[in-house]
């Protein structure tokens, strides 16, 4: 049996007619940039997350950049974040001239709130928790610390669309929530796309201009800005897919629960807390012989991935910050052990069963 790690084409097959008819409709209007579809998606997405506003942008990285700058993070400021994320989280901080300050993570791959306080300096301006693998970080404690120290909170929710924590959705805890609609995300478009959620009307108004050259109207530029817009065509696809998202996320969770039930006695799997509803963008198991396991599964036709093998503080690009091996033991330990199994709504029960069988075969259980 061949089981690809991801397979966005399968989702498309089910929605083909609906997507093509939207495509046709949007294309015929001739409005391809910032039209009705973007506005509708923003409204729907804000409602979905439970925030007052949402702003569609070109991608998840730009969502972070605009949130940081729009909320007033400046060159020289420090922003606390996790060292085990995709490079975009920390790099957006660095790109605006601020410094990413890493704090180690917990067993659940998310920022460890108990370690945040000791990383705070007079220069600290914000905390950027990353809801890795589709599980919301401990936002109660993070928000409490942010309040105590008067820090901004910018959620990197790129992997966690629809995930909730104590019945609140990701993207609704911080000053801003940043989402990616990249093709591998639970809610995705057919190219790059991103969206910011916020209850802050100033950020909302500023981000609307930031994404569109700083324009107040066609002829007046309030500040020099960027071009980072969610295409109309992509917004239309996002609107359609948003109506299926809960169903898909339930399936992610169902598959995750199946993997947990079948594997938890034999290998390290995530443990779901009673007050959270994860969306398992990634389902990660951990094993000391990760590379052997990965190779074994590949031989069996089960494709897996490592998200991510090199923690951010050990990349060439961050060498000048002076971090070294041993600084974040949990993240480093996980980087050597983690393996992401195939998980997507279209994955069939028989395929998930095969994945489990193969893992068990490797473990000789």
């Amino acid at each position, binding site marked *: 049996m061949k089981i690809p790690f991801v397979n966005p084409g399968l989702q498309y097959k089910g929605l083909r007619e609906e997507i093509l008819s939207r495509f046709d409709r949007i294309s015929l209007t*001739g409005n391809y940039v910032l039209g009705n579809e973007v506005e509708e998606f923003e409204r729907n997405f804000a409602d979905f997350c439970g925030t007052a506003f949402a702003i569609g942008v070109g991608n998840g*990285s*730009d969502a972070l950049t605009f949130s940081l700058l729009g909320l007033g993070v400046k060159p020289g400021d420090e922003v606390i974040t996790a060292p085990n994320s995709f490079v975009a989280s920390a790099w957006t901080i660095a790109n605006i001239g601020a410094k990413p300050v890493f704090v180690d993570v917990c067993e659940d791959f998310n920022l460890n709130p108990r370690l945040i306080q000791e990383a705070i300096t007079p220069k600290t301006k914000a905390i950027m928790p990353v809801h890795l693998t589709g599980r919301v970080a401990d936002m109660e404690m993070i928000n409490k610390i942010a309040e105590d120290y008067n820090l901004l909170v910018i959620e990197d929710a790129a992997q966690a669309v629809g995930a909730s924590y104590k019945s609140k959705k990701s993207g609704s805890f911080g000053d801003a929530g940043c989402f990616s609609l990249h093709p591998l995300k639970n809610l995705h478009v057919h190219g790059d796309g991103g969206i910011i959620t916020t209850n802050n009307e100033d950020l909302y108004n500023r981000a609307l201009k930031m994404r569109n*050259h700083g324009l107040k109207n*066609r002829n007046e530029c309030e500040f*020099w800005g960027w071009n980072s817009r969610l295409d109309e065509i992509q917004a239309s696809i996002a609107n359609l897919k948003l109506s299926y998202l809960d169903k898909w996320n339930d399936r992610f969770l169902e598959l995750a629960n199946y993997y947990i039930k079948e594997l938890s006695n034999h290998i390290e799997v995530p443990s779901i807390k009673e007050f959270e509803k994860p969306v398992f963008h990634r389902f990660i198991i951990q094993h000391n012989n990760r590379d052997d396991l990965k190779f074994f599964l590949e031989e069996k036709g089960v494709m897996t991935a490592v998200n991510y093998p090199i923690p951010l503080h050990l990349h060439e690009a961050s060498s000048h910050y002076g971090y070294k091996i041993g600084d974040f033991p949990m993240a480093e330990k996980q980087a050597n052990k983690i393996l992401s199994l195939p998980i997507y709504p279209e994955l069939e029960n028989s395929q998930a069963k095969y994945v489990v069988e193969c893992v068990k075969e490797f473990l000789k259980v």
Partner: protein
Amino acid sequence: MKEISHNFLLKQYKLTNELPINHNYLPQQFQDSEEVIDEIRKLVVRGDFTLGSAVNEFEAEFKKISNTRYAIGVGSGTDALFLSLKALGIKEGDEVITTPYTFYATIGAIVTAGAIPKFVDIGSDYNIDPDLIEEAITSNTKAIVPVHWSGLICDMDSIRDIADRHNLSIVEDACHAINAKRNDKTAGSIGDTACFSMHPLKNLNVWGDGGIIVTNNKELHDKLVLLRNHGLRGRDICDVFAYNSRLDTLQAIVGNHYIKKIDHITDMRIKNAHFYDKELSDISQIEIPSRSPEVKQVFHLYCIRVSERDDLQKYLINNGIDAKVHYPIPMHLQPAAKDFGYSQGDFPHTEKLCKEVLSLPVHEFITEEQMNFTVQKIKEFYS
């Protein structure tokens, strides 16, 4: 979500898209789109949405029409400028010379790259005046961004000469100038890079935002490939802090389709512009820029100077003609420019042009009948 309609573009679409003689040709273009849709069907099943095979194909075709060694697809024309400046090492506090008669993106890219724009007035061709560049150069100047306004390539030989004397980089803002030439040289053949936009209303367009950079410099190419994709050398190795700015595969498919037609599109625009040139030349209230034989101007916009501009524009709109002003307020007088310390009168040629300039629809779907009607209405207005 609170009900605030924030989007001035929506209002704008509503106002102008209904005009029968329009700048927007997309509905007509889309009538003949089955071939593109077929390719998109295949893409979605294949699944290579980001930096997929169609992007490579588009880059290969684009460098052919640009006659350059490399082409790098990015998210937009703005990002093409921004990433070029970053790849050239432009940093905080550097000065970049450009024209105040341009679209906001030119300045946005310079400022977001950390640099300070230094404006130089335009000449009679609406482009930066090379004779005025040298007096704007200081010890902080690092680059020149000439803008090939409306598809007319600037006097690049003179600009290259100045840049070489002062050791400056050149990033050509060629967002209007796909397929344009000057002395048989394309945009990108003289600058360190040239930056193009494939925004839906450009001569070569896609169905959303898209851009592309061309260069002959391998080192710049290698840097730009990293900069557009998070600095990733492989999936897991990251060399530099970088950005996410990729041409969507879906949009590259659209680009691949229309790039085959670019010579036809260009010829039609030039033909339409010459028609206007001829028909409008005897109206004394209109000044058509002088056309030079060594230049292949591709007329992304057909811009002329007119007297009583605002009234003429209203008159034409009332008659169903989408006459536009690109743009009424020069960059140095924008609210965003207040910290740069410029004032009214600093760039008299630009300021005068902004009061007089008017654009008429010139795209490949405009018919001779529509152009005749437009000319007739202009004559009527002045009679």
